[in-house]
């Protein structure tokens, strides 16, 4: 067969496939009729082979390129992961996959918590011993100095009350999610950036706590922080665990290649961090609406701790892994 004959005999097929690929613009197979779909699956393999034949016949590079492009476009339409409808996928994720993922990645959570606890204690002790140390741990923007001994928890809450609640909650939620996403993304620095985020936040909290304690205001401080803070800090730690998963997968690839390890680490980590979004929404709503409300402090604390306990229970209990030795459960696994 001569190159010319080859072109002549195949051109209708290419035209047809090109028409179908063009119709499925932007990779949406939904635009195609059932017949066209069948045709696509039938035509694509033959055109893929034509790419190789065109190379063999050394036909015009331009045609080769277009043929190649056509085959790539069709390939992209056909080979893809099966996509589930969004809502059932999200439901299944939180009903089963997310708690399992959290339990599987518990060592990272433990590591993040340890870093947090140690730096919190360090900053607390340092500020208790020498009050001026507070300035080391707290960014200059947050002026520690003006909350003198005369400040009560009511005063702190009062400042909060002056800010309208809906924008307050919205601002807190978006800010906290941003912090969490940064803690995750900075994991790409082999975990160093994530550690920094955890360290900075823990030290700030420790220094604040010690600062208030220095003035004998520990109770008002914690009753102000606890309602939303327990869940918020927990969620930040989950995000940090995700960052550590990402960073350590890059730093310590084990038996995988470094890039394969990074990719699988990133897949785990991104799901782990996305699961913190609802936690931050709950914490933000509490912080925006309940923390500044005129409710006795103790009730707020109990509420905050209960909510956090519920979230942690969810993560530890829901979606139990099917037993390896037993019968496969109805829910299925993996």
């Amino acid at each position, binding site marked *: 067969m001569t190159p010319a004959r080859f072109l002549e005999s195949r051109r209708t097929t290419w035209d047809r496939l090109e028409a179908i690929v063009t119709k499925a613009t932007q990779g949406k197979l939904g635009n195609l009729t059932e017949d066209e779909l069948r045709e696509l699956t039938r035509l694509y393999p033959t055109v893929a082979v034509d790419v190789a034949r065109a190379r063999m016949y050394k*036909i015009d590079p331009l045609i080769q390129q277009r043929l190649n492009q056509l085959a*790539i476009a069709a*390939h992209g339409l056909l080979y893809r992961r099966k996509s589930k409808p969004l809502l059932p996928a999200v439901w299944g994720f939180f009903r089963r996959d997310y708690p399992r993922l959290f339990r599987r990645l518990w060592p990272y959570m433990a590591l993040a918590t340890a870093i947090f606890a140690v730096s919190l204690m360090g900053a607390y002790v340092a500020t208790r011993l020498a009050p001026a140390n507070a300035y080391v741990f707290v960014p200059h923007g947050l002026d520690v100095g003006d909350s003198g001994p005369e400040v009560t928890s009511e005063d702190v809450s009062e400042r909060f009350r002056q800010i309208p609640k809906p924008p307050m909650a919205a601002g807190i939620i978006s800010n906290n999610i*941003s912090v969490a996403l940064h803690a995750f993304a900075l994991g790409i620095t082999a975990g160093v950036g994530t550690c920094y985020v955890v360290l900075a936040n823990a030290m700030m909290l420790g220094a604040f706590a010690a600062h208030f304690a220095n003035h004998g205001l520990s109770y008002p401080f914690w009753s102000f922080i606890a309602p939303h803070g327990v869940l918020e800090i927990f969620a930040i730690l989950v995000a940090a665990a995700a960052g550590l998963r990402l960073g350590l997968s890059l730093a310590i690839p084990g038996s995988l290649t470094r890039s394969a390890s990074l990719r699988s680490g990133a897949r785990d980590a991104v799901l782990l961090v996305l699961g913190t979004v609802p936690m931050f929404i709950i914490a933000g709503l509490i912080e925006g609406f309940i923390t500044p409300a005129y409710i006795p402090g103790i009730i707020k604390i109990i509420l905050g701790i209960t909510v956090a306990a519920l979230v942690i229970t969810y993560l530890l209990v829901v979606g139990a892994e099917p037993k390896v030795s037993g019968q496969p459960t109805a829910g299925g696994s993996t």
Partner: protein
Amino acid sequence: MQDFDIIETPENVGLQRRLAGIGSRFLAGLLDSLIIALMYLILFVILLSLGLLSTGLDANLADTAGMVLFAVLILVAFLIYWGYFVLFEAWLNGQTPGKRCLKIRVVQQEGAAVALDAIVVRNLLRVVDMQGGYAVAGVSMFVTRKIQRLGDLAAGTVVISEEIQDYAAQYDKKQKLYDSVAPAAPHLASTGIKPEEYRLLQNYWLRRHELDLDARKRLLPNLIGPILERMGTVPENQSLATLEKHLDELMRQARGTDSTVPSGETTTEEQA
């Protein structure tokens, strides 16, 4: 760093795709940033105009409505910042408006359409890549073979160019897939140029802007010299400009001055 990449299909054919360069990716990013800035501007204008509109309303009602709206705007701004790239890439199968303009697309390294989790990974890591005005991304793309920024490496994605590099585009943009194989020069015989010489000349002509000046100065006299000698029209002035003018004239004659589609199998480099 290379500008193409081979994917092995299940049909055992290596399909070649062209990777998007740092330049086009940067431009696409710039366009997207401009669109995001425009969105923020619109949010700001909405906020301002509602503030002005509400002056006539009952103060309490306006206050509550205004606060809720303000909260919504904060959330929308947040969604734009973190969601613009994710939502567009998910919706347009790996493209954003900017990428669409530059005809580039995100795909999985293995060649499949980009998956949702990969889209989220690469765009969350954008906050690291964009440090120093995307300097981090730039360095990463420069040192990786497949021009990947950190987000791409973690997500296992590459950005490919879908623009067909069309050497003949300047002659006819609308030509069909296989038309270019047709004999391009109906009046070739009358010029006394052999078909293979014509192909060579044409290839040179179409790709001359990709060659550097020294290469052109070296190549062209070798290509066209023997032909001009045969025709007895060797010019006094052997400068590149003069020779290229002669070349253009010859090709016009061969085509009968109208712009039919050129073609060529051999490349200039192979001959050189």
